């Protein structure tokens, strides 16, 4: 999985490309989020539009990122979750925790 970074004002957008599943992918997302938080980039929007597959470990890395950001006064929000991602977030009760958006501009403005 690749992660490309973009900035919109004080919001950093993480464009994920590839499967967010157990192993290297979830690991790299967590590390990338930690790096960003360490450099004071606290408002993170994770773009899931190009993540065809996501599993419980992938969800775990989103949860970890969310908690990590929250503990440092930051926020992690989700952009364009796929149907599968929405289903998983719904089953796991995480839709009540994560703010999700279908529109990037709205998402950026919400921080």
């Amino acid at each position, binding site marked *: 999985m690749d992660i490309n970074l973009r900035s919109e004002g004080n919001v950093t957008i993480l464009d994920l490309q590839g499967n967010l599943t157990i192993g290297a992918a*979830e690991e790299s997302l967590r590390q990338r989020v930690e790096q960003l938080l360490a450099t004071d980039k606290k408002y993170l929007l994770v773009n899931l539009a190009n993540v065809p597959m996501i599993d*419980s470990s992938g969800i*775990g890395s989103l949860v970890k990122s969310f908690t990590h950001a929250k503990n440092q006064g930051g926020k992690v929000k989700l952009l364009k979750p796929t149907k599968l991602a929405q289903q998983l977030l719904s*089953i*796991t*009760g995480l839709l009540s925790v994560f703010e999700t958006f279908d529109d990037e501009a709205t998402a950026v403005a919400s921080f």
Partner: protein
Amino acid sequence: MQSTACLHVTDSFGIRRTVPLLKPVFTIGRKVDSDLHIMSTTVSRDHGEIVCENGIYYLVDKGSKSGIFINGQRVERTALSNLDRITLGGADEYQIQFIAANNQQADQFSSIDGLSSGEGQLAAATAKEKLKNLARYVEINQAFKFSLAPDDVLTLVVDAAVELAGAERGLIMLKGDGDSLAFKVARDNRRNNVEQRDFALSTRVVRQVLAENRTVILNTTPGDDQQMQSVYNLSLHTVICIPLHQFLMQATVGVTSTLQRKLLGILYLDSRRETGHLSQTNSRLLDSLAFEASKALENARLLHEEQEKQRLEREFEMARSVQVALLPTSDNIPQSKHFELAAQSLPCRYVGGDFYDLMALQGGTVLTLCDVSGKGISAALLASVAQGVIEAQFYAGASPAEVSTTLNRVVVNRSDANRFITMFCSVLGDDGNFSWVNAGHNPPILARQTGEVEMLSTSSLVLGAFDFAEYCVTNTRLSPGDVVFIFSDGVTEATNGSDQMFGDERLQNLVQRNKDRSAQEIKDLVMSEVLAFTHGVPQGDDITIVALKMK
């Protein structure tokens, strides 16, 4: 490998050779055409012989003047045992040792027979051929999974190197985790261990080998210049120091791959003899020595890794049996006149993050199914903790909501936060009241006797992710004939060769169509349908099922 008996003979010059006992009668004496010719005036011309009868070797005194001895005892005719030391009266500068047939370690040495004998230079090609036996020996051990401690291999390598080069002593030092070299094994040419403190080595030579990564030979005489001072001080006359390498195949872009060398350590040989053979050792022989010694060490390392892997596999097997024993099986799954229960868990690795628990308590029967995110040992460890918490809580009289809240707190506080647990946790009363909490778990399927299908879902948060999560109980009334099918996502996400998932719909239809069967039949049917669906594709996740059928 040689399978005949032989003698290890070390002469007064300290030169070793191995003499196979190929004849039924093997003569020993001062006579030039003796099978073992001893050049000593105190030895008789026909001193003794070794006679082989029915596979047993007898040492016989042929009427010598000074006698013949086994391990210091004078004998007339006595059967030889492996490693017996033979002495000819008055010729005690000769060391003779009997090596019985099929003694593997001895055979290994014998294959390197005579390479260092002073009877002339050996062709490097022959030497190389003999040397290869050492690496082959380790390979054979590896192939047959014989136990061979790495230190034994080091000893074999040093002994062979000392013998081949005609050195007096040899040692091996290997790199540890850092760059420093650690003393491993030192041996002399009589195959005795040499203590590290007795082996003063030239650090200058070692440094040079490490710096230049090539074999260094130093011949020193009292007239050598200042640079050789440390060697001179050690009164060494010849030193050979050989770098040992690990050879790594490295794939490069395209189809080619290259052989990379990584320095493992050094093989250090020295000789104090003024006319030592070390100085005559030719460079091709040394190259062979360096390569084969490295290969033998590498083989030993691979063997060690293989053994380590097998040890780990045994540990995994034990872990698996511990985990399996934690789950109720057909013997102790609660049954009642009101309902039937069936359950099974198939970890995709040795151990898994799924588990179920079924307990008959006073307030009702507990049905729990949990899935720890991730797989394998890390997930299994957390699963065991969770199972313990759940059981203890239920025994203490907690409700499914209280159990969920407590477990959530435990996992939030005690785990690395990258993991969470999804759980379906319920208590079934004899009156058919079913109280349940769904903490982020795949909704179980409730297939009613009437044909309706309900999903037991409340969108409560997973356990272990957030300390603020709250859980409340939902009550559902179950009637005779109703089926509750609880499962982990390994069932619906089971994937076939075309990357298709088994899916929720297929599972719902299957359960609904078979709701009139027994709990056991429904569980078995789904399990076999899932395995048939994924036919040939390795199981990607733990698969766990609990089936409840109301009577």
